[in-house]
């Protein structure tokens, strides 16, 4: 990935978080929705949670391609 692209990406990450801090939900249905930029936390933690789930499934059920043959 080029340096310029990386910079742009970091800028977008920061911009999205800052925008989140400025914009509040008017119709929060759950308590967590009141936390500013909570979606950024979800996005980051969620990705690692999925990596963890992926690892577990891979450990349990990864086989050779000709397993059923």
């Amino acid at each position, binding site marked *: 990935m080029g340096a310029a692209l990386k910079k742009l990406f970091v800028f977008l990450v920061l911009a999205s978080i800052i925008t989140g801090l400025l914009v509040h*939900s008017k119709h929060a249905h759950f308590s967590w929705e009141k936390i500013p930029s909570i979606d950024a936390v979800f996005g980051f933690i*969620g990705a690692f949670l999925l990596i963890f789930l*992926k690892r577990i499934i891979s450990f349990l*059920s990864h086989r050779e391609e000709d397993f059923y043959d």
Partner: protein
Amino acid sequence: MINPFPPAFIFIIGALAIPFLKGRIKQAYLLFLPVLGFIDIISLQPGTSWVYPFLSYQLVLCQVDQLSMVIGYIFLIIGFLALLYSIHVKEDGQHIAALMYLGSSLGVVFAGDFFSLFVYWEIMAATSVFLIWFRREKESLDAGFRYILMHLIGGGILLTGIILHIESQNSITIGVLSPGWAYAFILVGFGLNTAFIPLHTWLPDSYPRGTITGSVFLSVYTTKTGVYVLARCFPASDLIAYMGGVMAIYGVVFALLQNETRKLLSYHIVSQVGYMVAGVGIGTQLGVNGGIAHVFNHILYKALLFMCMGSVIFMTGKRKLTELGGIAKYMPVTCLACIIASLSISGAPGFNGFVSKGMVISSAAEAHKSALVLLLTLASIGTFLSFIKLCYFCFFAKNEHITAEDPPLNMQLAMGITAFLCVFIGLYPQSLFHILPHPAHYHTFTLHHIAGTLQLIFLSGFAFLIARKVFAPHEGLILDFDYFYRKGARGIAWFSRHPLNDFRLGVQKSLSGLVEAFAVLGNNPHAAPWIIIGKTELALATVLNRTLGTPGRDLLGTLQRNLQTLQSGPGRARASHFPIGIWVAASLAFLLILATLGS
């Protein structure tokens, strides 16, 4: 003015003309049919038509309302685009199967009674399987058999449910079902086509094995008719709503593990159908609208993804991410279309997935289903990760060994129009809202929603960059629930072959021994005592020979020969005449006695 037809007829009957057409005329005809279908459905009047009495019930071939219309529209739009994508295919069989599959799906959508629904349901299974078999590889044949087997089992379960429903309600009209045995059977029957976990295994097993063009059709119709009938018969059910959440997350985790491009897409069908099922299960106006809007949008971007990956396989012959990479510069149109479809499925603002996914998640939040909201949000993070992986390893990762070019013009055009529709609905969602089943009061572009979605996307993208190595594709197979079905099926085959068939052979042997004994007795009654003595001698001699170990082979041989002589020796042919003569003589004597006594 001609009255509108049930749209299914146009395609099922229209398909029969394909073998008689050639070249450009055939291509034009293929594109003309969905246009005709579209004209047909916009001239349909709301309500029921094409009603026929059947036994003491009524078959309704055309039931038209907002719900059937919106699904009808998208089935025909994508039917046109998928046919455009496949008009270069020379094999008539593929076109016939695709048209009949499309037609029968429309049949299900417009059916007003369970009988016609069931018939169309089975035609769908029986025609779609050819889109897999026409790939003509061994693994496609095998996957096709597993596909049809599961759908026939599902069809059987559905029929059982329908019969139970008729038994209890004395009606075949399609409508909301109330809990009971019929409800359970019909739900499982519908659920199999909708890829409920763990009944989903046919989908990722067979869709990657379809023909390049056939899989585009497959990705559209079966699961979406499933969602449609769920919306008709099972609105508002927590069980269904949470099943949707489980499907969404399950599909996404398994998709992250895949190396084969179309298998990855297939698991995303399970995941995306999860959103639709969740919306329908929530059952509020926003939920059902969201679910149905997601059907509409998903059909567009998922068909586009199958078109893109089909093009990659068509042009490079490679279907695994480990073998692909660096083809963005050779296939720019395909790459751009794939990026648009990936952004759409990831729910990026400005693309169609953003609209309907937001509706479904909002409806779950309004219904205060926090677990469902978290499941669906997590699934949307996974979707984005999965499509960064797909686009990166397919188009951008370093690979010096492949050169390719964009596919034929018709395929490019189909991809272009589909991509345009994804962006158009993304930017102008009102175009979709006013054809939804309920009035839509949903604000798509709120700052909060846009900022939240961008945070999810950018931060999960950031996580991808950090842990890029974890997402690298690997060779191998990931077992799914089909492991249990396949092992179970092998167990059934073993049970049939050994205990059951051995028992059958045992019964057959003992009965034929009995018959043989009677035959010998009847043929040659006076030899019977000698045969019994001979058999006993032989049995004793065999046992003695075995236990004492005496070398009595000569004796055994002699005894066996003697027995054979007795059983089938000279005179046997004649001997068989004796009993007949005796019986005839005895009968004549009996009649004579009767006659004598009678007189």
